[in-house]
């Protein structure tokens, strides 16, 4: 079970941050991920406009 982001693809638009139901993502100069809060629901992967996020269950 993993969450990963390809930072070279990421446009830091914050879409994933706005949809995360668990507040596990935060927007700084890049997207920050808090493993403790994430439940791997995968919605961030789904909304990413450039498919930079991968969630595997």
């Amino acid at each position: 079970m993993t969450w990963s982001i390809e930072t070279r693809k990421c446009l830091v638009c914050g879409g994933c941050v706005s949809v995360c139901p668990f507040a596990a993502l935060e927007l700084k100069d890049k997207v920050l991920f808090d493993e403790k809060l994430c439940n791997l629901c995968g919605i961030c992967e789904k909304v990413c406009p450039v498919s930079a996020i991968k969630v595997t269950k």
Partner: protein
Amino acid sequence: MNDVIIVGAGPAGTSCAKKLAENGFSVKVFDRRAELGNPKRCGEGLDERAQEFIGKIPERCIAQKVKGARIYAPNGKYLEVILKYGGFVLERKVFDKWMAEQAIKSGAGIQANTLISSLTKENEYFTGVKGEFLGEKFEEKAKIIVCATGAESPLRKQALGIFSKANLIDTCLQYEMSGIDIDSDFIHLYLGNEMAPRGYAWIFPKGIDRANVGLGIIPGEKNPKFYLEKFVDSRPEIKKGSIIEVNAGCVPVGGMEKEMVANGFLVCGEAAHHVNPIHGGGIKESIISGQMAADVISECLKKNDVSKKALSKFNDLWWEGRGNRLKNVEKLREVVEKLSDSDLNDLADVLKPEEIMEFSRGSKLSVLAKALMRKPKLIALARYLL
């Protein structure tokens, strides 16, 4: 100690700050970005009538004036909506700074490049923020904290819990393109649930050979990049151009909540999903929402009562003034996303441009319902609208 701290210096934050400062309150605005208005997450279109709320927009903020919108059905046929007062395609990084300057002239303070990470709380009241400016951590206090951060909003989550229903977010990608051919008298909106599921593609001119070319969709199997590339590739007059900027973002297309306040806290603008659910336009809604927030906050500060109960007047004011109307538009969006491309083509034959304009404002939906009734399989959708 400030009277008000506003987090986010977009149209909601700065219009709220300006009004509060004019009313004599001390206001500090923080924005995460190094440059206000940049990167934009926006097609930059604005109805000229927004000036009723913010005064005359200087020429330097405007990339292109337009007469109205052309709305294309999937078969390519278009309806031309002429705006009585016209519209603008803005240059957001100039416009947002102008809005900020207006607030500063009225007495507000604004600081860019400042990340606010959390709210501080004492005795059940939100009393300040924790932030960081160029590596330096700080805490600052205020009687009321306004969250105007846009859709990605950890502060709103901290104060009011989870807001978004994930299915009410559209995901968008936009290229600012140069060296293209486009009729720059109009913004161009392309409908089609095959081309852009639930959303639409757009071309907003920023001159005769430059435009924001973008697309928003419901999150699904394929990302917006897939659909946008298809859209661009199918249009030689666009495809020949160059990409000079890439913008992405997610826009709430519904899911407005009744509760937008807590003790010492208020959320407004796109952070509160104050966006038109059919076209995703948010600048004007944000300005209205920010100014309404300022009115309520001013009253509360005068009475020295910043409790949830006192601030909840904002809930009533916004829902009465904007929310009920936008809720209708959300219904419209729910219906439109269920229509097939051939349904959309047929509607384009029977509807008038002025009617479409009314629909997008949440009125005259009975006219659309009547048009839907022509097809037996759409009667349920028509009933839903009424």
